[in-house]
């Protein structure tokens, strides 16, 4: 695992060994407060997506240490890490396929409330069988998707038939529907809401139906109104919104150093793909510095000047990189440097990092 090069508490952000993943705590807390206000006013429940950062400690701030509040993670093994830290209500994004994972889900259900996705009857039968042998019950939800990009059934599938058949199996308690709605998959419109409304009517029973929705945009305040049918919104990126100009340091970033300057207008950083990920694009740099990331190899990042002005960057100078995808960057680190007022105040672990099963 990553070797933390712990600097004394109080060390300036810019004196951390690089590359270093950091969060700016004040910015994060401001984002949490803002989103809490929005959700309080909307009467909807925010289920934070904690798979983005994988840190139960950071998650504590999101749920204000109230472990009865529900959270979302992608995998069972991430859920286990959060349950070990006291979280009691976890929605899991990945289907539970195979006897090993079904057993895993069963054992975890003994201690905490988990909800899993089901999209086909055979999978439901297998899980039901396993839970019936133990006399236990598990919550399930049905993901709905209009795109092959996300797991789920289409509105043209017989969702009502599936849900009602699963309910009859026993040991599986229907918990609602789950929809991914983001920049890539904008599924929510009038037609969809009408179809969903009918679906809810045809599948609701004495069991209550909770509707979860996952959105990846950080602008969750802009149009909450259009999710009138949904009780819960799943989001995690709001935490890292760096658009608030009250803060000089972004909500999160990767601090890097200039390690080579072999020719004019080219500098090489000690942060490459392995320390920030370029899976979903190159990182960005604050425009005021006058440089941008041109390319990245595994270990190096090449930055170039964006204008004609002479840029005075020397070996050892620090550059903050903003990841193209926050979750992809967190996935590479075992430790988060917590910065407050420009200084290191703590180092938190990302316990659930790398828990892919």
């Amino acid at each position, binding site marked *: *695992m*990553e*070797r933390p*090069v712990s600097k004394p508490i109080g060390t300036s952000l810019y*004196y951390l*060994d690089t*590359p*270093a993943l950091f969060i700016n705590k004040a910015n994060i807390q401001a984002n949490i407060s803002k989103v809490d206000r929005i959700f309080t006013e909307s009467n909807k429940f925010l289920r934070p997506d904690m*798979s983005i950062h994988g840190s139960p400690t950071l998650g504590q701030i999101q749920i204000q240490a109230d472990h009865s509040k529900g959270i979302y993670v*992608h*995998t069972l093994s991430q859920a*286990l890490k959060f349950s*070990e830290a006291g979280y009691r209500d976890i929605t899991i*994004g*990945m*289907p539970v*396929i*195979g006897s*090993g*994972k079904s057993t895993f889900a069963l054992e975890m259900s003994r201690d905490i409330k988990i909800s899993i996705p089901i*999209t*086909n009857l*055979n*999978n439901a039968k297998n899980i039901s069988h396993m839970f019936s042998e133990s006399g236990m019950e598990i919550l399930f939800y049905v993901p709905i998707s209009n795109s*092959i*990009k*996300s*797991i789920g059934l289409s509105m043209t599938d017989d969702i009502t038939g599936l849900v009602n058949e699963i309910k009859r199996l026993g040991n599986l308690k229907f918990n609602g529907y789950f929809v991914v709605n983001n920049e890539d998959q904008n599924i929510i419109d009038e037609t969809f809401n009408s179809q969903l409304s009918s679906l809810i009517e045809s599948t609701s029973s004495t069991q209550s139906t909770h509707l979860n929705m996952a959105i990846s945009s950080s602008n969750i305040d802009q149009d909450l109104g259009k999710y009138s049918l949904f009780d819960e919104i799943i989001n995690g990126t709001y935490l890292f919104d760096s658009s608030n100009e009250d803060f000089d340091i972004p909500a999160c970033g990767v601090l890097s*150093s*200039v*390690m*080579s300057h*072999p*020719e004019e207008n080219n500098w*090489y950083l*000690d942060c490459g*793909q*392995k320390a920030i*990920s*370029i*899976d979903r694009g*190159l990182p960005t740099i604050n425009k005021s510095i006058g440089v941008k990331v041109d390319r990245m*190899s*595994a*270990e*190096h990042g*090449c930055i170039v000047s964006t204008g004609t002005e002479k840029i005075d960057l020397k*070996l*050892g100078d620090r550059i903050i990189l903003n990841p193209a*995808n926050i*979750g*992809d960057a967190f*996935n*590479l*680190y*075992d430790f988060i440097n917590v910065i407050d007022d420009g200084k290191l105040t703590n180092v938190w672990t990302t316990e659930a990092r*790398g*828990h*892919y*099963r």
Partner: protein
Amino acid sequence: MHDYRPIYGTDKQDLETPCLVIDLDAMENNFDVISKEYSNTVCKMRQHAKNIKCPEILQKQIAQGGTNGGICTAKVSEAELMVEGGITDILITSQIVGKDKLDRLTALAKRGNIKVCVDNRDNLIELSTSAVRNESVVGILIEVDTSMNRAGIRNSEEAVALAKIAQTLPGVKFLGVMSHQTIDGEPDRETRFLEGKKYIDMCLAIKTAIENEGIPVTVVSSGETFTYDVATRIQGVTEVEGGTYALMSDPTSYMNEFTIAGKVLVTVIDVKGKYITIDAGYRELGGPLGITPVVEGFKEILEFECMSDTYSVLRSHSEVSLDIGSLLYLHSSQSDILVNRWDSFVGLRKDRVELVLDITARGCHN
């Protein structure tokens, strides 16, 4: 606390997925190719740790032969891990800057034979100051940019000037030159040899320029997996920094003497007509700027349609018999990007777990 660790003897079919797997027969074949190629040569392999990150595996190549007993690392933290893992002859192939990091490097030099590459005068002086402070000596290689368009000196004048300074400074010992190389596409053997020789010759020209100033050059560290058999045929090269060959990756599979050994075992979790969803996505596999892995046995049949955080959708170009629960192997597009995401390797031989190794240098970024 629970972390998945399959017991020895577990059948492939019973592994929890996704799972980073090493085909041990394949890896040993790759190590054997190297030990044979370098068995009677002056030039030796200095295996790169950056895509393996596990001292036990690096020790296997050292034991199997063909190496000079040393390895390369990309970072100081990787080097620290390797010294703790019993490998003490290390070349750090990146420039190390900043007082704290240099102090770690020069402190490590008291515990091992540590060498580092430089391309800047100020950095060299800082390194010397740090070494003196720590009462250690660090070996110096000047990095030459031959084809990577990255760090490294651009001409012989810069190299000679650096070598002269290095000779005068305490705490550093000038050893020679080093370079990385790259080649595009799937070159045939002739192209590999032509291109590889061209880049290695650029490095050797710098060696000659330094020697012409009366400064001895004892180390020329040049060559990678694609030139592993080129470098041995060029007089003057003393070591090759190969790394990819150990686990291999799809883009280098044109070198068919090596076998893909590093793979990700995944499970089909959904099938919708021609679309097949598997339980691994960006987080587990990586897909730098759209470069996706390849599905073993289905190279022309299944391709990545899209990737999400923890799953991917494959599109089938013809009928395939895959159901929910079917297992597939994926070959990485770049093994070091892949390995850096995982905490352990599961070593399989004949589809049974023979060993599980921690990837102890995973995440060693600094």
